[in-house]
């Protein structure tokens, strides 16, 4: 069974204080790892897809990296507007539903204090 564990559950940072969010996964053949941002009362917003170990993607203050067992979302010099819940999901190459199913973690709630 595919599993995704995100840590920490919640993280409070001062504005400008860099940190990393972790997503550990077990999956039967990784097809893709996805990062989403979710603001309260809204749907998840797509950030990145990573496909293979060693891959990195960047967007503004965010950088996502991938190893064979985990992914990190690094946030550099965060601003209050980066406050949100960040979700990680994996898509298996082989699953009961073919390649349609995403398995989500429960997210990290990030708060940036001005």
């Amino acid at each position, binding site marked *: 069974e595919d599993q*995704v564990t995100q840590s920490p559950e919640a993280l409070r940072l001062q504005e400008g204080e860099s940190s990393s969010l972790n997503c550990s996964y077990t999956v039967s053949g990784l*097809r*893709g790892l*996805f990062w*989403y941002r979710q603001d309260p*009362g*809204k*749907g*998840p*917003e*797509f950030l990145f*897809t990573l496909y293979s170990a060693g891959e990195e993607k960047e967007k503004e203050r965010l950088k996502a990296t991938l190893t064979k067992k985990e992914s990190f979302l690094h946030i550099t010099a965060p601003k209050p507007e980066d406050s949100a819940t960040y*979700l990680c*999901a994996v*898509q298996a190459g082989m699953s009961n*539903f073919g*390649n*349609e*199913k*995403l*398995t*989500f*973690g*429960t*997210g990290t709630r990030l708060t940036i204090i001005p």
Partner: protein
Amino acid sequence: DAGITQSPRHKVTETGTPVTLRCHQTENHRYMYWYRQDPGHGLRLIHYSYGVKDTDKGEVSDGYSVSRSKTEDFLLTLESATSSQTSVYFCAIRDSQETQYFGPGTRLLVL
């Protein structure tokens, strides 16, 4: 925006009442999904569709049915709502890169 709308956005209903949620896309994508989101659980797949009239079950499909008569619309029906189906429901579409984009969600309260 990914061109996905959901209706209604909020609904309060009573146990035993049938409820239908609608997802509408303007992107002409083949794949559409229904998820529910509950505290302590990640987003969980209820049903998905891979084309008009082509649907399949997800991991939490009991008590739910779906229909897709047009590419742009994917309906989720709770045949007889129960309190355990109180949740936030999200629709998603998948593009050619296999990235899923989510709608704004429907908050459902079953009393």
